[in-house]
């Protein structure tokens, strides 16, 4: 079997706009056939990185490799990439057929084959009968499918998608997300997907790259990044977390106590504690507990490796299948997201927050 290669590789890539550094020494690989997502707040450099891969923005420093070839100076039209924008960017004066056939014209593909390939691409995006129409005669979702068809029909080395779903409404977005993933699997095209929607990122990616301030904060499989954030930024950005300073205490054992600055004591696991063991001298840490990893109960049922903190519900946000609570414990508000069985807990109710040791993620105490 062929070894997995990298479709794209960034080595120490830097991008400066004048004095401003938009991307700082980035190292990243996009393995063959994989779906890689850039996730991060607005302005963190996602688009800039994508445009450098595309060849639309030049690289200030470092190397960019596509299929193991250095392409720093290769102009975009020689890179063989599929590009999809948030704005669709279809050619308004050409029919759908001509839009999709556009890239094929520059690839010395015989005329007879072009019709065949366009038809297959249209079938793939499930719009077989729109070839004769113009872009403005299609809905937004349909236009985005055509943009996708136009990008994949040329069999690109990499598919680059910059927030392709952001212009669509919620339902359509969901549907397109499934569709996009299906097509990507079917064709096995290495894909880089930019988004600032975390549910999109978690659902679709083989590899999730969380960016902040032009740097990669963390990369890895989505569950991994989600369950084991390496920084407060990631913990906070992905989902909702309670981040509280504390002291790691006691001997090295399976469950280790963490004394929080607010007075309560939680348990964490040896494995979690091990992640900060390398930080010398100090035992001050930050405990990260995800809002949806806290179980609310009305009674205290003691369990091994579990701590129950008594608190009072301050507010309840009804979110459909889940509810978000703010629970006050010793004057501090904790955020908790729980599924609703029958009825959500009521405002003002006394509850116990059950927190398992393995869900108490430990980060080094000093600032990032």
């Amino acid at each position, binding site marked *: 079997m062929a070894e997995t290669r990298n479709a794209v590789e960034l080595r120490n890539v830097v991008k400066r706009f004048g004095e401003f550094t938009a991307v700082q020494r980035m190292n990243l690989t996009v393995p063959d056939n994989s779906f890689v997502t850039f996730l991060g707040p607005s302005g963190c450099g996602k688009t800039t990185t994508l445009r450098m891969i*595309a060849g*639309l923005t030049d690289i200030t420093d470092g190397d960019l490799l596509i299929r193991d070839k250095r392409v720093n100076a290769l*102009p*975009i*039209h*020689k*890179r*063989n*990439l*599929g*590009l999809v*924008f948030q*704005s669709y*960017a*279809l*050619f*308004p*004066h050409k*029919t759908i057929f001509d839009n999709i056939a*556009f*890239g094929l*014209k*520059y*690839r010395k593909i015989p005329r007879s084959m072009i019709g065949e390939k366009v038809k297959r691409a249209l079938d793939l995006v499930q719009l077989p009968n729109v070839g*004769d*129409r*113009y872009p403005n*005669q299609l809905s937004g979702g349909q236009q985005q499918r055509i*943009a996708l068809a*136009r*990008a994949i029909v*040329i069999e690109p080395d990499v598919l680059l998608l910059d927030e392709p779903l952001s212009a669509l409404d919620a339902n359509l977005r969901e549907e397109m997300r499934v569709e996009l993933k299906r097509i990507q699997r079917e064709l096995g095209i290495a894909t880089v997907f930019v988004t600032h929607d975390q549910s999109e990122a978690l659902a679709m990616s083989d590899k999730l790259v969380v960016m902040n301030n032009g740097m990669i904060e963390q990369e890895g499989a989505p569950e991994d990044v989600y369950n084991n954030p390496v920084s407060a930024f990631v913990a906070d950005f992905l989902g909702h977390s309670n981040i509280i300073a504390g002291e790691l205490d006691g001997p090295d054992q399976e469950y280790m106590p963490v004394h929080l600055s607010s007075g309560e004591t939680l348990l964490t696991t040896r494995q979690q504690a091990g992640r900060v063991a390398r930080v010398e001298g100090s035992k001050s840490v930050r405990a990260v507990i995800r809002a949806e990893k806290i179980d609310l109960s009305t009674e205290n049922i003691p369990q091994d490796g579990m701590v129950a903190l008594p608190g009072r519900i301050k507010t309840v946000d009804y979110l459909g299948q889940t509810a978000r609570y703010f629970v006050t414990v010793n004057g501090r508000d904790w955020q908790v997201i729980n599924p609703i069985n029958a009825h959500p807990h009521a405002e003002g109710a006394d509850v116990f927050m059950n927190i398992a040791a393995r869900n108490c993620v430990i980060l080094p105490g000093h600032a990032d």
Partner: protein
Amino acid sequence: MTGWSWIRIATILVYLFLFAPVAVVILLAFNANQFGSFPIQGFSLRWFEALYHNDAIVRAFKTSLLLGVLTSAISTTLGTLAALAMVRYDFPGKRTVSSLLVAPILIPEVVLAVALLLFLQFLSLPKSFFLLLMGHVVFTLPFVVLVVQARLVSIRRDVEEAAMSLGATPIQTFFEITLPLMLPAVMAGMLFSFTISFDDITGTLFWKPGGIETVPTQIFAMLRNSISPEINALGAVMVIFTVALPLLGTAIARRMSAAKMKSAKT
């Protein structure tokens, strides 16, 4: 009476004041009477016929046409390229160049005319048709630049980027994508510059070499002698050229895009 009816009446009066003289000229052009004035005594095309047989006028007409067509060709080419540079590229001094390009609109034409004339004298160049043409290019250019620029701004850059990502070189992208999308503006610029050149008089009076007359300068010269009904006929022809031509142009453009849509639907 309400305020609105006053506004309505005022508007009608303003338009009457603007267009009545034009209507009068066109009406009188068909008047059979010897002295181009009211009352109208029967319909006749004799003044148009007289025009056709008046060598000076026919010559002036040909000069104007040639001048208009050349001006519009040069201005449209230069103006489109300038607009592209302004919208798509960054270069030092862009803002200065941009304001210089449109300056001729803001400067009174007489000033521009005298300035160019003095400049020619400074270079000790004689007046010639070529210089007249250059003069017309200078003050029609801003219109083309402005019209094309406005259109170009609305053509999203990512459409061009998509074309290049699909393998089109920048030049192929220009001809396949950018040019077709900005064509309506280029055509509009072309019509503008033709019309402006065709009925310009101020600059032309200053710049034209001896012996060359355009239609406006010819009318001007004729008016100094007498008000011949031929002038009415000539006026009517001018109106047709400067009003009907652009209207026809836009109508054709609309028809073309409508036809395209129709063929797309079938």
